[in-house]
């Protein structure tokens, strides 16, 4: 059945009314977006100076300190069951997008320190079915609620940085010593770096920052123009891991 003149005018009129509403809906969209925008509010970030880091051959001070404080197990039956919050690996694993078969010899032996990137647009948060992981709007930390994690491991699949580990066994079995000030996790739960949220709330710096013997790690609020992290990223050329994925990682590397 065709559309007659009268019906056509009705539809066209409704369409015009709809278009006229657009500025109003845009206004609402802006309000909603600005409240939840990852770029609004305080944004905690980390700058890692690989120039300083590579001077310390085989140094694992930050890794040891972090794993000891957060009761991260160190002994595993197989490498596949490894749990890690912060770790080192080779340059081309950290920055595959550089795609350079003849990487500068300086970087050939440079292990890159890696941890959760506390992305502005974290894919792990999007896939979590229980909201056990979420991005804190007040400071940008990608938090975890281990009480709520059901161990589905969607977040592990979603994270492009390998920052998340799954507890295949009881993590207490792989612990030499337990720090009573921090809980352990249980079997079947995912864990990762929380930017030392429990220390930040008390006004302390993350453990890795404090443990570094050469002050290679800087932590602070990137939204504050006078903060040290902001000044560092303005002053030096920095790399971020896999920025092309659009996750907006918040760990900056001075290479």
């Amino acid at each position, binding site marked *: 059945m065709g559309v007659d003149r009268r019906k056509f005018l009705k539809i066209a009129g409704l369409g015009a009314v709809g278009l006229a509403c657009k500025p109003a809906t845009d206004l609402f969209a802006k309000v909603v977006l600005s409240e939840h925008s990852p770029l609004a509010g305080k944004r905690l970030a980390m700058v890692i100076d690989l120039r300083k880091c590579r001077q310390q051959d085989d140094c694992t001070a930050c890794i040891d300190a972090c794993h000891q404080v957060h009761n991260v197990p160190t002994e595993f039956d197989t490498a596949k069951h490894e749990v890690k919050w912060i770790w080192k690996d080779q340059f081309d694993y950290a920055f595959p997008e550089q795609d350079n078969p003849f990487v500068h010899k300086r970087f050939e032996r440079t292990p890159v320190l890696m941890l959760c990137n506390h992305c502005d647009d974290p894919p792990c948060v999007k896939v979590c079915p229980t909201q056990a992981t979420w991005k*804190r709007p*007040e400071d940008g930390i990608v*938090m975890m*609620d*281990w*009480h709520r994690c059901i161990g589905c491991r969607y977040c592990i699949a979603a994270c492009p940085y390998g920052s998340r580990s799954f507890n295949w066994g009881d993590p207490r079995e792989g612990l030499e*010593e*337990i*720090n*009573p*000030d*921090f*809980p*352990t*996790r*249980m079997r079947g739960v995912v864990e990762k770096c929380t930017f030392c949220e429990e220390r930040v*709330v*008390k006004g302390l710096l993350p453990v890795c920052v404090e443990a570094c013997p050469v002050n290679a790690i800087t932590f602070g609020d990137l939204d504050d123009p006078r903060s040290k992290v902001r000044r560092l990223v303005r002053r030096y050329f920095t790399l971020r891991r896999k920025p092309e994925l659009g996750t907006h990682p918040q760990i900056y590397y001075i290479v």
Partner: protein
Amino acid sequence: MNDLWRIVIGLIVFVVLITSPVWYDAAVGKPSKLNLESPVRGKSCVLERERMRDVHMELLNDWRERVVRGGERTFETSNGEIYDMSLTNTCLDCHSNKDKFCDRCHNYMGVDPYCWSCHVNPGEVR
């Protein structure tokens, strides 16, 4: 209807078995008394004793929600005292005898909370 007596006997056995706890209770009398050890130190709890007995599990759930998801850390009691909202560092600091307080009552009540799968009992740490 030759099996009528079998069915009746079966029913009687069934009813006796299903009500056996009641008979047992009637025969033995009062339930055994629960002896809980009072805290070694600390005079008052974060709520009154009776309230705590009823709602400590809800309080702990509330604490975990506020600490982990809300970013709050401290709890104010009705008489203005401030406590860290922490099972390990606040509750177990006074109730340092977990096995004679928490565990004993939980065993008595037949409940098995899994708080300690993750949260550390400072007394047990190697």
